[in-house]
């Protein structure tokens, strides 16, 4: 298939996501400001005001209501979108679970940000990963290009009849939301062909149903089991949709995980989000030093791609999981996921907790801990304070 010369724009992350949302043509959006997501919803308000996007904009009074309103709109058949961050995501949490439990197609962007107290407007993943049990598909972008691409993919995944689940697209606050990068964008007609009109509608006056009533215990457990199966099914569907997207975009880069020089590596980093780019730089430098390093980037956090993690990491001499979020009293959250995926295998897994509340992390930090690992000096859990 011949790939067209792509239109290239210089966009900050928030505007790249807004551009993708505009092309996805949602019918109802809800806006409530929170740093660092705000400029995305301002841009969408501009698109609607200028007529570029024909949609209803609910200028809502809180994040809880933001998700509630698009939940209602989604039930009534509209393609919907909202975005939030940090405290806003926490405030939304009840409705996040509500939407996941009801399994409605919704796309929400989360500009990841640390959680108070103390106040921090800067990036970490504590907000995003705290929603891991809410029956949402969670994908995480490395850069602005991915944030754009994955936003479009998110609508398609969410609405796929084999899935029908809400999707959360995470991207690092400020690091991506406010950084301008080169973005190759699809043409509107390409997005139209990739995203067919939405089929989902639960408000039908000729066949009225009750949505979300009380479930007796037997029924409740069955419903949760079905959700688990849908999540498992979603893995294959996500891969299929991402492959299809690769054909359209002409860029080969998508899957549940991304392996960067990890096929022949003896030691690997595991990361999620924007600092995967820093880790790649570190991998190159370590290779120059003669250390056979690689990187496994987790692109899809829920459903967790444990089979891929096992496939790529099963023969490593050491794995270092970098975490920007902690389950206090347990450990790095991503590290725990990786450890459980490698259960029964003889792979040493180390956990580095870093970058909380926006604390700077550079390729040098990745290099240093890998050098320590190779020299046998890395402890099981290290905090880069």
């Amino acid at each position, binding site marked *: 298939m011949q790939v067209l010369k792509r239109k290239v724009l210089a966009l900050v992350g928030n505007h790249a996501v807004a551009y993708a949302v505009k092309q996805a043509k949602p*019918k*109802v959006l*809800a806006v409530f400001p929170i740093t660092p997501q705000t400029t995305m919803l301002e841009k969408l308000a501009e698109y609607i005001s200028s007529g570029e996007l024909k*949609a*209803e904009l*609910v*200028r*809502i*009074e*809180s994040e*809880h*209501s*933001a998700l*509630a*309103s*698009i*939940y*209602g*709109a*989604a*039930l*009534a*058949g*509209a393609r*919907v979108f909202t975005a939030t961050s940090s405290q806003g995501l926490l405030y939304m949490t*009840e*409705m996040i679970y*509500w939407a996941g439990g009801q399994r409605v197609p919704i796309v929400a962007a989360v500009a990841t940000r640390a959680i108070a107290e103390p106040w921090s407007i800067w990036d970490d993943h504590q907000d995003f990963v705290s929603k891991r049990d809410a029956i949402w598909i969670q994908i995480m972008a490395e850069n602005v290009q991915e944030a754009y691409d994955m936003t479009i993919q998110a609508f398609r995944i969410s609405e796929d009849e084999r899935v029908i689940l809400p999707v959360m697209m995470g991207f690092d606050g400020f690091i991506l939301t406010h950084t301008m990068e080169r973005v190759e964008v699809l043409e509107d007609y390409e997005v139209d062909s990739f995203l067919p009109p939405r089929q989902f509608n*639960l*408000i*039908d*006056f000729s066949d*009225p*149903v*009750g*949505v*979300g*009533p*009380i*479930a*007796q215990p037997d*029924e409740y457990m069955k*419903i949760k089991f079905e959700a688990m199966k849908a999540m498992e099914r979603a893995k294959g569907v996500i891969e299929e949709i991402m492959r299809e997207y690769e054909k359209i975009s002409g860029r080969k880069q998508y899957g549940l995980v991304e392996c960067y020089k990890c096929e022949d590596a003896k030691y690997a980093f595991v990361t999620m989000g924007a600092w995967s780019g820093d880790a790649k730089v570190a991998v190159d430098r370590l290779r120059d030093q003669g250390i056979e390093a690689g990187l496994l980037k987790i692109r899809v956090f829920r459903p967790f791609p444990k089979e891929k993690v096992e496939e790529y990491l099963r023969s490593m001499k050491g794995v270092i999981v970098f975490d920007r979020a902690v389950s206090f009293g347990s450990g790095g959250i991503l590290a725990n996921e990786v450890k459980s995926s490698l259960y029964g295998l003889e792979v040493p897994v180390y956990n580095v907790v870093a970058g909380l509340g926006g604390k700077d992390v550079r390729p040098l930090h990745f290099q240093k801990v890998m050098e320590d690992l190779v020299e046998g000096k890395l402890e099981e859990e290290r905090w880069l304070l």
Partner: protein
Amino acid sequence: MSLITQVKRIPKFYRGNAACPGCPIPRELDILIEELGEKTVLVVPASCSTVILGDTSGMPATVPVVHSAFAASAAIASGIVRALRMRGDKDAIVTVWAGDGATGDIGFATLSGAAERNEDILYICYDNEAYMNTGIQRSGLTPKGAWTTTTPEGKREVKKPLPFIIAEHKVPYVATASIAYIYDYEAKMRKAKQIRGFRYIHLLSPCPPGWRFDSSLTIEIAKLAVETGVWPLFEIENGEFRLTSVSKTLLDKKNRKAVAEYLKLQGRFNKLTEEQIKEIEESIDEMWEQIKEMIKK
């Protein structure tokens, strides 16, 4: 030809539901559906009605029902109506059916937000004056002096004047209603159906177990609430206040029955002293003085 016109009511909730004996909610919902029609969506936050509307094995409503988290109903309704309008549906009535807790307490910001945005929804608060579904705990709309399980000595604070608070949002239509005055309630539903924008109806719903009265007395108590002046029936249409039904005759205090008549039938007020009853009477009189002022305007 018979001289008597027989109006056939189609029983819907009467076929069976999980309401307590004497609960007015099923009747109130039947009237709602009769008046608003089958193109109605009910959005129902956590409340007695969550139970009354059935479980995953079936529901008594003949219209789409969307169950809602406690604080979310006015926002969910906002989203539903916008999506319906976007798909070209101009006449469906999206209706929130919420208790006093979801309306005046936990969902108050959501309600106020929807009112301020003048969302094209009808919001009905069926007010049983406490958290009844969880077992009679006080709410912001429990009246002063009332016993509840969390106010064993009687509530110390006054009831939030919700219809007036919503009216201050300058929405097109606010009304009060009572299950004892069905024609008044029906007329207000019909009016609300014709109006576009945010409409609010506050319906006093006596609760036999919560108010501690015999389940055969529901209508009598609902009627006394109006006749004593405790629950004035009125509507505020585009800012214009007017009394409706029997309440029109109650501006003159001598037409109002003694408040004690209303209170004495309810166990929740049986610890009130004479002095406390007098205080309650005075506060009702004061409310009617304010109503007089509102009519003058």
